């Protein structure tokens, strides 16, 4: 039943490792840049706010595939030599996902009521204490479910690096399928791998969702 998958398992698993690595770098970079984007979106300095807002609105209205292509075409010009698909994919994912993470962070920050901050100040807490003990813990708890969901989306999105020839799980599966022509079991296998991992992720996300509702 799964003979073609079984025969090519080492090759497919090596592809899955590429998927995991790409997801890892995309998340680390995307969340780090996302923090800066989130800060930029609540900045009181007009030029920072407008620059970041332009960047966010631009990227969020463009298909990810196009962003991947664009960086694949532009990187060799900047670097001056042809670039491997992997670093090129990592850069496009960081630039793309940061806008989504940035908006989640901004929404989390803005969801904390101003009264609560005022109340913290009135108890004699300093700006940093308020941020450290009131703002960040509450905002963090509120945005955690969305952050996990967006991480799952990022993980699914890495399959799109297919288009620049990155040998991740889906690319390798389609290569194997070209030789074996066992599409049902091969693509079924990929679907099951993604389904199980993403479903587990969504369960975790839902648990934090419940916790969020309990907190204020």
């Amino acid at each position: 039943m799964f003979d073609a998958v079984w025969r090519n398992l080492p090759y497919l698993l090596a592809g899955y490792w590429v998927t995991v690595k790409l997801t890892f770098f995309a998340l680390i970079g995307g969340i780090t840049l996302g923090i800066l984007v989130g800060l930029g979106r609540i900045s009181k300095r007009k030029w920072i706010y407008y620059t970041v807002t332009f960047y966010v609105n631009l990227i969020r209205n463009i298909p990810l595939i196009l962003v991947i292509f664009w960086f694949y075409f532009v990187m060799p010009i900047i670097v001056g030599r042809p670039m491997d698909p992997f670093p090129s994919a990592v850069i496009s994912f960081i630039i793309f996902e940061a806008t989504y993470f940035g908006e989640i962070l901004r929404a989390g920050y803005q969801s904390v009521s101003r009264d609560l901050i005022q109340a913290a100040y009135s108890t004699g807490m300093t700006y940093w204490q308020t941020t450290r003990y009131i703002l960040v813990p509450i905002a963090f708890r509120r945005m955690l479910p969305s952050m996990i969901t967006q991480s799952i989306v990022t993980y699914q999105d890495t399959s799109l690096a297919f288009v620049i020839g990155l040998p991740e799980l889906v690319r390798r599966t389609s290569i194997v399928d070209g030789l074996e022509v066992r599409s049902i079991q091969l693509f079924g296998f990929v679907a099951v791998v993604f389904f199980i991992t993403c479903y587990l992720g969504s369960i975790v996300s839902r648990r934090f969702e419940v916790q969020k509702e309990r907190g204020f």
Partner: protein
Amino acid sequence: MRLAYNFDWGVLWRAPYGVWLLQGIWLTIQLGLIAWIIALVLGVILGTMRIAPWPWVRRLATAYVEVFRNVPFLVQLFFWYFAGPMLFGQTLMFKINAISGLNYYVAIVGLGLYTASRVAEHVRAGFASIARDQFQAALSTGLTEIQMYRFVIIPYALRIIIPPLTTEFLTIFKNSSVAMTIGVAETTFMTYKIDSETFHGLEATTGAMVVYLLIGLGVVKLMGMIESRFRIAGLVGRK
């Protein structure tokens, strides 16, 4: 750093590339619109099923949503395109694979089925936001259960979820770019094709970005009109 690159924006309009781009844009619009109709109809049905009084109906809809949300769209598309015809057995498979423009139909249906799972979630959330009193008020006027959904709850929920549906409508055009992986010659496919002929993919993709931004603006404008046309009296809507 030296920019050893000569920009040639002419690839955006010079023959035959300009025509290719226009053909691509036309396909992107077709894919988005037709798949959107499928997604909307199926999404509303599934979303309603998720609050049905029969547990197995709810479970069926939940299973659909979970499966389609937790598998990347690219994988779904590959499955439908490569494995789909095989599911019908040998003889039918050859007939199906012989259909001209099969990838186009698969892309539309695949995109519709995928987006339906996302629409269903918004529909369910829309139902959840309607107060219980509304249901009871509808029943107390003598409407049957079916009539209550048909004339009160569904029209009400659909209006509430117009803003999230706008986002999904935007997303469907963006996701239609994935259809290039099965060879549908939409906008993104054409930019890649222009690159392989001219090595000026940068200009072509930049042009395509503008195209997607314009489509996005069009969608926002359209949905804004729909939203103000169907605004629920007494509710504070967006300006």
